[in-house]
């Protein structure tokens, strides 16, 4: 596959896809053989098939968060959010503010997201290097990366164009609580091994 750095002539660029292109490509039957795809800055990225550690961690998160936010917020698991005309990622989990249309009328946007969680095993470099800066640029107020390999949860807050200004890390003995939902308190040990 060609990388943009190989294209020495700036006038020959890879075409960027809009979210509209991306949905029409899906409707036309593209990506049918891919496990999961997401649109990141105009590129369709194929996500690796998720392993059992990943599945179990997402299930733990879902079961831990759902009862505590019921009635106050909306929990959406492995579903897309729309960041801009060129980016529509599928985070592992997002906690959303309630919306009158119950998200039938349009995908969640950055202002809807109270907390976003990515579960990372082999994908940690992609989550940290590509998706985290993207989330920061779009002002997503808080992101957690549940890092399976290090058995830690990384907490990112105070987004800006250059990234998240605040980073915390917690281990299995600590408590987690998103700033936008202080009543939601989780034992990190329920997510980590």
């Amino acid at each position, binding site marked *: *596959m060609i990388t943009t750095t190989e294209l020495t002539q700036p006038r*020959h660029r890879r*075409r960027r896809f809009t979210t509209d292109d991306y949905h029409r490509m899906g409707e036309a039957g593209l990506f049918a053989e891919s496990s999961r795809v997401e649109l990141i800055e105009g590129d*369709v*990225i*194929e996500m690796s098939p998720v392993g059992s550690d990943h599945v179990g961690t997402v299930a733990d998160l879902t079961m831990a968060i759902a009862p505590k936010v019921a009635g106050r917020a909306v929990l959406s698991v492995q579903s897309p959010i729309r960041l801009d005309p060129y980016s529509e990622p599928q985070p592992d989990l997002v906690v959303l503010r309630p919306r009158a249309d119950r998200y039938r009328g349009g995908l969640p946007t950055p202002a809807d997201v109270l907390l976003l969680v990515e579960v990372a095993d*082999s*994908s940690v470099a*992609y989550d940290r290097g*590509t998706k985290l800066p993207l989330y920061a640029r779009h002002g997503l107020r808080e992101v957690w990366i549940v890092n399976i390999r290090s058995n830690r949860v990384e907490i990112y807050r105070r987004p800006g164009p250059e990234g998240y200004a605040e980073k915390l890390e917690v281990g299995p003995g600590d408590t987690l609580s998103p700033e936008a939902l202080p009543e939601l308190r989780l034992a990190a040990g329920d997510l980590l091994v």
Partner: protein
Amino acid sequence: MIELAEPPTPALTRYKLTVDDYHRMGEAGILTREHRVELIEGDLIELAPIGSGHGAVVGRLNKRLVISAGDQALIWIQMSIRLSRYSEPEPDALILRPRADDYEKSLPTAKDVIALVEVADSSLGYDREIKLPLYARHGVAEVWLVDLRARQVEIHRRPGPDGYAEKLVARPGDMLRPAALPSVEVAVADLLR
């Protein structure tokens, strides 16, 4: 656009479009005439608008080739050739072996090509670094690279996985003749005035 100099992790890659995907995007109206693109190794590459210098040389080339080839070869101008499941470029000119159906039933492939021509101005780097190695890998027998800036034509022959083994340079005063069909000839001086 993200600069994927290498994929963020081995498991995460940009989705590679197949030639079938590419055609379905055309049929679904996602790609239209407004989009000047070609499919190179699974990426849609945006083509620069054709300048008058480039257009004039392609026009002269078309005229000379059609007159010289007669019924010995088909001359295709800025149309598609299918190289693989992931690559369908649009070279400036193709000198093709005659086929009973005039390539109506399926696009030409590398083995149908007597010679392929790219006319390069600002696109020289792209033509030389991306497209020439692609043509060589797929066994296109002969490529003429018309370099408008240097006022010469590079003739590349003997394709292999690592590129073309033979390179000749023709200048005004020289004749261009495909090795596989030397009765077809074009004077360099007729192209580069």
